[in-house]
């Protein structure tokens, strides 16, 4: 207990990437990553429904992208649904109307997410704390209203019947399992990218900004540039996640640009564990599982959800993964 009390407030300086291992994974992280890979490989054959798994991975990637910003730069963006939803709309529109192949649609979703992030980030990073959150929320609401009105989004009906298409023109993605491997690959690439960014020299500066921005400035870093770049990377990844999701489900709708989606990704990250590598995925898994499997309990969904959140907040302050990490005395 004593160690815990002294640790609060004073956070240890991140150790320089240690044993020269690839991607900067520590040993427990490497084990956890291998477990994750095995799980991804086995899950669809172990009775878990592929579409459900794909949804989980899409939200997992979304939460990872969000975590990059809040967990490592300390910026609470309350408008990430804009990039997520817009990525989905762009991918859906290009795949359905223009007949773009799925891999390109996903990339386009990411590019548009990043571009949107560049503009919004440029405006928002000038402020901190609650003002930053409010500006991102306001800008994302702007996007929401555009999506309600713009003809290409289909208004409240959304873009329906988006074809999954053929990967590289060869592999038909309409069977759930082949789509699953694509989504799993996208997720693993995105996940490793986030991890790589965090453990790069750039990531070290991000963490320095999170701990003490004036000090980072005094050391000669242009903190605004770093924050903007982190924002763009995060928005781009959110766009990729949204694009992938719209291909999986064949729909892109207002739900994904609505502010409640921005709130949901905050919850996923908090429940999973802020600033942990695996936390966002676990958090996304918990929330998505609840939405899916509690659906059969009818009106009890919201009550049970609420109860679980209360329990999480009271019992797992550091999030699920954070608590497990603290228990095992490792950083996950």
């Amino acid at each position, binding site marked *: 207990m004593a160690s815990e009390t002294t640790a609060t407030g004073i956070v240890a300086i991140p150790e320089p990437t240690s044993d020269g291992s690839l991607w900067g994974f520590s040993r427990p992280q490497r084990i956890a990553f291998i477990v994750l890979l095995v799980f991804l490989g086995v899950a669809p054959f172990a009775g878990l429904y592929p*579409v459900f798994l794909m949804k989980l991975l899409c939200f997992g990637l979304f939460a990872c992208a969000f975590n990059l910003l809040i967990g490592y730069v300390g910026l609470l963006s309350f408008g990430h649904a804009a990039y997520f939803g817009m990525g989905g709309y762009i991918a859906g529109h290009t795949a359905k109307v223009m007949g773009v192949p799925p891999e390109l649609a996903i990339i386009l979703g990411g590019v548009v997410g990043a571009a949107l992030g560049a503009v919004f980030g440029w405006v928002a990073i000038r402020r901190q704390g609650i003002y930053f959150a409010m500006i991102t929320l306001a800008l994302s609401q702007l996007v929401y209203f555009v999506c309600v009105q713009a003809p290409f989004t289909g208004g409240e009906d*959304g873009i*329906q019947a988006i074809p999954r298409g053929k990967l590289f023109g060869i592999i038909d993605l309409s069977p759930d399992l082949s789509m699953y491997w694509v989504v799993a690959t996208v997720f693993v690439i995105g996940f490793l990218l986030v991890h790589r960014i965090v453990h790069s020299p750039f990531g070290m500066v991000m963490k320095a900004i999170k701990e003490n921005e004036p000090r980072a400035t005094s050391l000669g870093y242009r903190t605004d540039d770093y924050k903007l770049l982190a924002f763009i990377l995060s928005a781009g990844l959110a766009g990729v996640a949204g694009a992938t999701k719209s291909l999986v489900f064949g729909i892109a709708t207002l*739900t994904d640009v609505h502010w409640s989606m921005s709130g949901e990704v905050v919850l996923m990250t908090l429940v999973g564990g802020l600033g942990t590598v695996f936390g966002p995925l676990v958090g996304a898994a918990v929330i998505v599982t609840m939405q899916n*499997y509690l659906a059969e*309990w009818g*009106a009890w969904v919201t009550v*049970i959800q609420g109860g679980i959140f209360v329990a999480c907040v009271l019992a797992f302050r550091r999030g699920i993964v954070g608590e497990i990490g603290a228990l095992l005395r490792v950083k996950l």
Partner: protein
Amino acid sequence: MTTTRRTLLSGAAGTAALGGLPFSSARAQAANTIKIGVLNDQSGTYRDISGPYGVECTRQAVAEFGAQGFNVEVIVADHQNRPDVGVNISRQWYDQGVDMILDVPTSSVGLAVNTVAREKNKAYINTGSATSDLTGTACSPNTIHWMYDTYMLAKSTGGAMVRAGGDSWFFITADYAFGHALERDTGNFVRAAGGRVLGNVRYPFPATSDFSSFLVQAQASRAKVIGLANAGADTINSVKQAAEFGITRRGVKLAALLMFLPDVHAIGLETAQGLVLTESFYWDLNDRTRAITTRLQPRLRDIKPNMASIANYSAALHYLKAIKDMGVAASKASGIEVINRMKAMPCDDDAFGAGSIRPDGRKLCPSYLFEVKSPAESRAPWDYYKLLQTTPAEEAFRPLNEGNCPLVRS
């Protein structure tokens, strides 16, 4: 004591999380069981319109159908008005042996499930969505749209209202595609019936809760009818605020383009009196509707059915009759064949009387223009409507050749 509480809470959270899981695996597929999945809103905006009551109406249909050589099972899920949740559940259901999905309010979810049903070649009966695309550009051989759509509401409220004397209109419209469509269609019917549209005002959607300036503007136009081209909470707010301004008491009619009996019940007659709206079912319409309402009462307790909830009864009953007619094995082989058999058979039930289903998947039934009674006129609980006009089944919906449904052209 922190540790104890913490352990207790984590234990509770864990148990709750685990409790949800075995649901996915506990589905043994029996060859002689027909599974109906009711997918609707159990907790949000549309709960009171159908939700648990729609499920009870479906169960009533199953009970009345009785044992006919096969078992019928009804399962339920809450799509939380989210298309991705709806798609996920419907795919899972169809893959795991659900034969027909029923209800599905919210247009975006209704259309999404439409695509899934077609891909999996299963049966899908939508009773809850308002979009007329389900029998138009998005129509599918696997789908029947059983109840109201925007065209039918606009035609009855617009056209029949003019015949009932309301010949000059002013629209208060939610500024998004649904509101625009309602206003455009209704305006066309008003003009076609010889009425005039004096003006309109569009308010930002969502996030408008103060309608007073729009209502004053509408009143200043001296129109006889104020058309509310919006839905849900917006409609309820407009009606309440109109009552505060005393608009209806001065002889101006308020026409709600999408409103149901439970909404009137929620607002109360004092506020809702004089409101004009369209439904295809009213419990006190005739002997048959009163009979089915009486039979349903033990299940619904103190709630009366409305057109959206009781449509599930009507649809499930007709579906089961078609299954009996073609045999369980044949019905499981192809959703299209089931829907085709349903289209070939004439419908008849106590809720909507005799009816039929068109090739584009549109179930035909009459629509009724009602006026909400004043508290003095109402003699019993739920005695809310008086009938103004009836639009016969053949005229109530969009003509077959105007919907651009690909099934009709081929």
